[in-house]
């Protein structure tokens, strides 16, 4: 008997329709981005790319309302900093929870799991007041610092470390006189690399996408993240949709690139996490 159900034509047809629905809005974003602004008024709507992409891009970067280039640079700074930091602190804490003995370990781990369920987004108002006190309003530290380490990251690394890092190896290193920091750097971090990479990818994408908190705290239109540039484009009185769509396409491109290159690992990470959670 088969271990798995076979897939018939109907299965493939259903999957193909789903895939089409998934991909179409993204594809169409690039179609409109490559056409002139009158594409929006056409019936039937255009579904093939045009030749206007270059012109749209230069108009987008020349747009004095959107500060699109600043937005791209800011988003890159924020996303890269947060990603490096989340991976570093999460692997460190995950290692401690999985492999080191200390008082209150299990209770503290439970606290971390509980924090993942807390809708911290509802704390934006005091967070905004806090940033005003720190004089971080309108500045990038306001979106970077609160995101430097996440409960999700710590928990994910802890789960992976408890099975991927060998306790014997750690003990052997200790007998050889390695301090805990060196054990982390030379033994644990190399073993955690696959999971740390997935965490890094997921963190990069979430941070690049983040909208609500930057929207609250970065009010200076001249210093946006790329998502806020999109808002400025979309809310403008004068709407040139091919230019707006060029913005959305460029803002989506880094995410798609990461996904195309590392999709297999990202899927693996999501599915592994699901079984363990």
């Amino acid at each position, binding site marked *: *008997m088969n*271990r798995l159900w076979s*897939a018939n034509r109907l*299965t493939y047809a*259903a*999957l193909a329709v*789903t895939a089409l629905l*998934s*991909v179409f*809005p993204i594809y169409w974003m690039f179609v*409109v981005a490559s056409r002139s602004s009158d594409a*929006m008024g056409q*019936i039937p*709507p255009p579904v093939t790319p045009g030749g206007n992409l270059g012109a749209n891009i230069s108009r987008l970067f020349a747009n004095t309302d959107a500060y699109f280039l600043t937005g791209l640079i800011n988003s890159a700074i924020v996303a890269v900093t947060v990603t490096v930091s989340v991976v570093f602190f*999460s692997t*460190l*804490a995950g290692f*401690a929870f999985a492999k080191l003995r*200390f*008082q209150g*370990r299990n209770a*503290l781990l439970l*606290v971390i799991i509980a924090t993942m*369920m*807390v*809708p*911290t987004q*509802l*704390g*934006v*108002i*005091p967070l905004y007041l*806090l940033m005003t006190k720190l004089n971080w309003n309108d500045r990038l530290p306001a979106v970077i610092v*609160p995101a430097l380490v996440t*409960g999700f990251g*710590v928990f994910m690394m802890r789960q992976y470390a408890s099975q991927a890092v060998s306790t014997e190896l750690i003990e052997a290193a*200790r007998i050889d*006189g390695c*301090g*805990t920091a060196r054990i982390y750097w030379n033994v644990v971090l190399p073993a955690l690399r696959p999971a740390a990479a997935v965490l890094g990818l997921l963190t990069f994408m979430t941070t690049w*996408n983040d909208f*609500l908190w930057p929207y*609250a705290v970065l*009010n200076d239109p001249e210093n946006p993240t790329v998502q806020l540039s*999109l*808002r400025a484009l*979309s809310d403008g009185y004068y709407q040139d949709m091919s230019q*707006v*769509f060029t913005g959305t396409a460029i*803002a989506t491109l880094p*995410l*798609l690139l990461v996904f195309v290159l590392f*999709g297999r690992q*990202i*899927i*693996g990470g999501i*599915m*592994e996490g699901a*079984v363990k*959670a």
Partner: protein
Amino acid sequence: MSVQLDARPPVRPAVRGSARQLWEYRLSRLDEKYSPYLYIAPFFLLFGVFGAYPLAYTFWVSLHDWDLLATEHQFVGGENYSRLLADPDFWHSLTNTLGIFVISTVPQLLGALWLASLLNRRLRARTTWRMAVLVPNVTSTAAVAIVFGVLFGRQFGMINWLLDLVGVGAIDWKANRFASWVAISAMVDWRWTGYNALIFLAAMQAIPRDLYESAAIDGASRARQFWSITVPLLKPTIIFAVIVSTIGGLQLFTEPRMFHSGTNPIRGGSLRESQTMTMYMFENAFAPHYNFGYGSAVAWLLFALIAIVAAINVVVLRRLGGVDRPTRTRRPRKERSR
């Protein structure tokens, strides 16, 4: 406790030689004992300052008449809350939030179950299919909301054009309240159905095959197997997905905010057709009103709503779908390749 144990010298170091060796020994004891706390400290520090404290402080702010420019914040007790409970715009946003939540979450989770059962078959190009269903989840939410806003346009939107082809008249997706809920739910489902399908797929692969084989021998149809084996065994995962969807769905902000453009999009349409509670919190706490006290009261009522809906979901789901199995079979650690 362990500190006390250390106060009396338990084992003398094996090497009592030079002072330097003793120093090194002490250092390594300190390292073993305290470095774990050092390693986990960043999370607790950051979460405390930027997560837990603001959330708790929101409650304190909500008890005050607190706005941007005033230097004095007068304590008003429950006044913000009583005003809020008499505020029709608040109830309007609550209805919108629950409406969008229901019409997005139910089809989303059912669709994800169905999609997972398709992906669980023996497929050619397995990874490609999985990537295709996940790709909406990795796109930029704000960007996609803009695209959907155009797809659902009244005059030139592709959805209305398609509806016209099958003889349905144009729908004003942004000005009709229910239609705007449907459009925003479509956006949410587009993003999250594939993601949840992969979560369900992972759980499905943990179900032992022989359960299905014996059911097939007993003559159970494939549909019967799905509802009598797959769904009950997936219950913990389904509950997990429902809770995550509840927490995220009730805080919905970016999609409805970016779906609308023009003047005052934070109101979610000229008659607040799709203003969610988080949007209402923003409208009051930030531009244009900057009334932090009132906005904080919205935040806390939303927090309460999330807790209540999540609890109801758990209770209802526990009841549904028969008995819990006493022993749950765990999947072997390595993913089976197929």
